[in-house]
């Protein structure tokens, strides 16, 4: 009894701890989420945030009237403002934001297909893409995206989430959203997109 009791105790401890903390990652356990650092669907526009606009130091630049997305490609450089982006053909995708910290939440995103923008400046389909943020410092201010993601029809330069224009903390005026990528690579407050050197 002592031996089996011990294993039961260990098993119960593991089950209990997971039950009260894994609800930030798995819908099934969401009702039991007592002690996870985050809650699914808790945040502006029902999405948690990893780094706020203020933390990233982009509040002024992101809300600037003169913001334009710079697209660099073999056929030249193009600057597109947010109204111009909104006038382009829109696509939608239902994709999760998933963080290295384990939490994830799914949302409905709307915006312009990245591949359409890349085609506009003639970036070849096999190139790795570099995405730069308005964020001046930090290890993720610029990210690279391999072609399998860059050319995916679900990869969007997102302008709206869950039916509303992107919140500032979610990357207004535009952020990238791609299937299956970690949250730190879903670059927010986009400034520049082009082929990676």
């Amino acid at each position, binding site marked *: 009894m002592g031996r089996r*009791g011990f294993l039961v105790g260990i098993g119960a401890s593991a089950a209990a701890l997971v039950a009260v903390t894994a609800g930030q990652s798995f819908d099934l356990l969401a009702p039991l989420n007592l*002690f996870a*650092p*985050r809650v699914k669907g808790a945040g502006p526009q029902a999405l948690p*945030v990893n780094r706020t606009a203020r*933390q990233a130091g982009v509040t002024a630049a992101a809300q600037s009237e003169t913001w334009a997305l710079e697209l660099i490609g073999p056929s030249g450089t193009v600057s597109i403002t947010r109204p111009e982006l909104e006038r382009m053909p829109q696509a939608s995708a239902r994709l999760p934001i998933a963080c290295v910290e384990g939490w994830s939440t799914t949302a409905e995103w709307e915006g312009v297909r990245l591949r359409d923008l890349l085609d506009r400046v003639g970036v070849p389909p096999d190139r790795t893409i570099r995405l730069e943020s308005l964020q001046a410092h930090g290890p993720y201010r610029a990210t690279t995206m391999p072609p399998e993601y860059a050319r995916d029809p679900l990869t969007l330069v997102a302008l709206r989430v869950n039916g509303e224009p992107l919140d500032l903390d979610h990357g207004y005026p535009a952020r990238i959203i791609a299937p299956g990528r970690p949250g730190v690579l879903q670059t927010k407050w986009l400034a520049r997109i082009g082929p990676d050197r």
Partner: protein
Amino acid sequence: MRAARGALVALGVATLGVGVFFLTTSLTPARLVWVGVWLAACVILHDGVLVPLLSLLRARIRRLGRTWPPAVLPVIESGFAVAATIILFVVPELWAQHRGNPNPTILQGAYADRLVVVVAVIAVVVTVTVRILVRRSRADGERGQARR
């Protein structure tokens, strides 16, 4: 068996080597020393503080529970294990919450309140279960005596 053991040890050492390679190529020597310090601290705190304290606690409970029915101690120890595990997780979380985070979507829960409730619930469940076990064993004892 011997060949399998040799292969496993060799594979393990090689993997260890890969880890050392990553450590030495991504951290400065000064930082590496700190990693060593933290590694040593983990072992020292666990083996030198945590387990001895728990062992003393357990010895005391066992001495107290000499006359209890045999199923009682495992119930108490299991309840303690569950409660202690959750406490071990939530206490650093409370500290992180106390430190504060500029992000309003992390560490927002009333963890302290919930911890108190969870531990209380475990305590109640353990107490009730122990009472039932003691009552049942006493009833069995009386029945046994009546049969004689």
